[in-house]
């Protein structure tokens, strides 16, 4: 029993640091900007049905109304007379959803593979890292295109394609961290205590690699949004839903005459990716104890 005490002490030592996280995050102006921007986009996604209850694919106005030309359509209409503002609101929902679900998927695979490989080492590590390398040798975007092209573009296949192709770097990161912790006293003590491997990984190893995982997750959401946009731009998005990428893709053919059709949703993508990157940077600094001491 007495051996368990230092463990509990270690856990409590972590807590004040956590409590200070939000405070430390809010001290960084760039992180605050990212948070504000992201909240705005989240609000847009949440309120899409309230502000624009109609289907964003509906042809509601005269085609090619420039932004500001008609107060009913503040961001203008596209070539089919669809309201661009409505598309941007509903597109926020789709883009964020795809970003979040795809990231969750690659988190599960990446963290799982990395933790198992790093903790058990040996043959499991060899096998899993070879698989990871196999995935890393294929350019992720081309791989995603192949998956979507074979499975037909739907929202699910796009999410699967992004999730399946973006985990390898996370797996390597987690494996490196786990390898480091594996030989630490805390894990060794847990082994001596006779805790099961699963329990050690879940309760003692993973909580200590949370920081790099959180930081890379925020960046992964951003890159998932970009990948989905690129796929939609290439015509490999789900044609039944409005995403920012599909709006840019549709606007591309009138780029020379009515550039706003592609530019408005393009700016939305820029804002979302920027917000997530700023937040990621902020989290990175806030979670890094050395930065904190300075």
């Amino acid at each position, binding site marked *: 029993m007495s051996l368990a005490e230092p463990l509990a002490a270690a856990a409590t030592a972590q807590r004040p640091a956590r409590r200070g996280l939000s405070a430390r995050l809010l001290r960084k102006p760039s992180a605050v900007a990212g948070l504000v921007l992201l909240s705005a986009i989240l609000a847009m996604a949440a309120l899409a049905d309230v502000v624009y209850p109609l*289907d964003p*694919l*509906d*042809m509601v106005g005269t*085609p090619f109304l420039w932004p500001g030309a008609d107060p009913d359509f503040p961001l203008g209409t596209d*070539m*089919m*007379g669809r309201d661009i503002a409505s598309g941007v609101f509903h597109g926020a929902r789709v883009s964020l959803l795809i970003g979040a679900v795809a990231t969750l998927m690659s988190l599960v695979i990446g963290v799982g593979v990395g933790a198992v490989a790093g903790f058990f080492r040996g043959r499991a590590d060899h096998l899993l890292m070879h698989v990871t390398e196999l995935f890393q040798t294929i350019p992720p975007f081309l791989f995603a295109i192949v998956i979507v*092209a074979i499975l*037909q*573009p739907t929202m699910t296949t796009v999410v699967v394609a992004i999730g399946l192709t973006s985990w390898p770097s996370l797996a390597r990161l987690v494996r490196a961290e786990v390898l480091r912790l594996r030989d630490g006293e805390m894990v060794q003590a847990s082994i001596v205590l006779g805790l099961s491997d699963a329990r050690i990984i879940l309760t003692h190893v993973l909580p200590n690699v949370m920081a790099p995982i959180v930081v890379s997750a925020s960046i992964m959401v951003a890159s998932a949004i970009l990948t989905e946009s690129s796929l939609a731009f290439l*015509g490999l998005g789900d*044609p*039944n839903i409005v995403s920012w990428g599909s709006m840019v893709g*549709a606007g*591309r*053919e*009138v*780029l*020379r*005459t*009515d550039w706003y059709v592609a530019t408005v949703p393009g700016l939305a993508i820029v804002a979302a990716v920027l917000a997530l990157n700023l937040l990621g940077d902020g989290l990175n600094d806030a979670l890094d104890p050395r930065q904190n001491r300075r």
Partner: protein
Amino acid sequence: MTSNASRSLLLRVASLAVGVTALFGGTAFAQAPQNGGTLTAIVQPEPVTLTSAINTAAPTGFISGNVFDGLVDYDLNLNPKPALAERWEVAPDGLSITFFLRRGVTWHDGHPFTSADVKWTLENVWKTIHPRNQATFGRVTQVETPDDHTVVLRLSEPSLAILSSVNSNGAQVLPKHLYAGTDILNNPHNLKPVGTGAFVFKEWSKGNHVILERNPNYWDKGKPHLDRIVFKVIPDAAARAAALEKGDVQYAVFSPVPLKDAERLAKLPNLKIETRGYEWLSPWLFFDLNVDNPYLKDVRVRRAIAHAIDRKAISNIVWYGFAKPAISPVPTTLGAFHDATVPQYEFDTKKAEALLDEAGYKRGPDGVRFALTHDFIPYGDDYKRTGEYLKQALKRVGIEVTIRSQDTAAFTKRVYGDRDFDISSAWFAAFSDPQVGVTRAYWSGWVGKNTPWTNGSGYRNPEVDALIAQAQGQARQEDRIATFKKIQQIVQTDLPSIPLAELKFFSVHAANLKDVVTHGDQIYGSLKDAWFDKTASN
């Protein structure tokens, strides 16, 4: 400052002077064609094969017409002009047609072209596997070749449509010595064609380009003028516009740039927009409704869908005005064959809803009656937008549509082979006689045969089949017109396919590329007359 200004003024005057001379130089004398030069054209999308005899897709025809000759060409008024056939005679009773073939013509591999090639292709390709020609040559009972340069078609009944479809696209003659006894559809020469045409196939780099080179032994002496044609594959419409604008590409067909961009490009001095060359096609756009679908098999549902679609919006908004609403599957450009009195399904969502209610498909608690899928022909954004329009239009009357996208090969297999679809879109060329281009969409013999661009809806009506057969053999044009009007009345009542719009295609070419359109079937014909004006400033 001042010296700079005056210099620029001087430059401007000088360039104006050059421009004026160029202008007068261009118009003052009708120039003789100049030889030489490489033409870079765009083919979109990339063809599946290069032999029109086995695949009538537009991109295949665009390239294939340069490698092969037809028995005839059609001038801008669609009158047949001699090509491989120097002349032809129709017997007074209409029961035989004799083609007198040109002498001294050789295939690109050196073999002489003879009447045996025509006979073999007619019997083994046109009458059996060609999607349109089964209807056209259906009444040919026997092909006689009294000598190497005479072909006599014996007909069971007069067949007036034949002479409107014997160019290099409608009746492409294949070299018998390379095809006889082989698996025609999988013959390797389909991908590296050997023809008699003005240009010889050189190479096909999949995904990049097809290169043709001048045929030095071409029978039409002095032609072609161009040394080589490169057909580039540029899948992106904006990139196509940029390539044309920059001059990297000098010729592109089938409305190659975004329709919205066409107006802008037309104003540029180095480019020209051309709408001629499509006369032979008479294209119409339509939705095929799979009549084997449990919902679509009910004619009330099919009519409701027609009522839910605003064909004016499709022409004016989706197609930016480069189309006009279609009334019947026989386009108005076919003159007397077109029947304007067929049943009309005006845009009326209330009528559509009433018909759907009557068919027993009430709106569910979520407002949805039932769900369908839509597969659009993957030929560009215009067709995708047409699909998006369909989705929205049907949603308004309570039908949920899921759009699916795929490449051309998967699309044709799905629609014409597996029949695993609900609503598909496509455009067909009606050609100058409905027997050639229209009947294939309704004749039951094509259903599920995996022959692209035929009967996609799965419509099987013995009465229509009988009328199609009857029209093939009618000797008097008035009788044929009456029969085709009857067919239009029936198919527009049963509505297995909804005609949407008559498309107006255009080409874009460099201003210094001359004589690029000399025929009414130019788009599927040969560029043997085209030449570059090197004196032009471009």
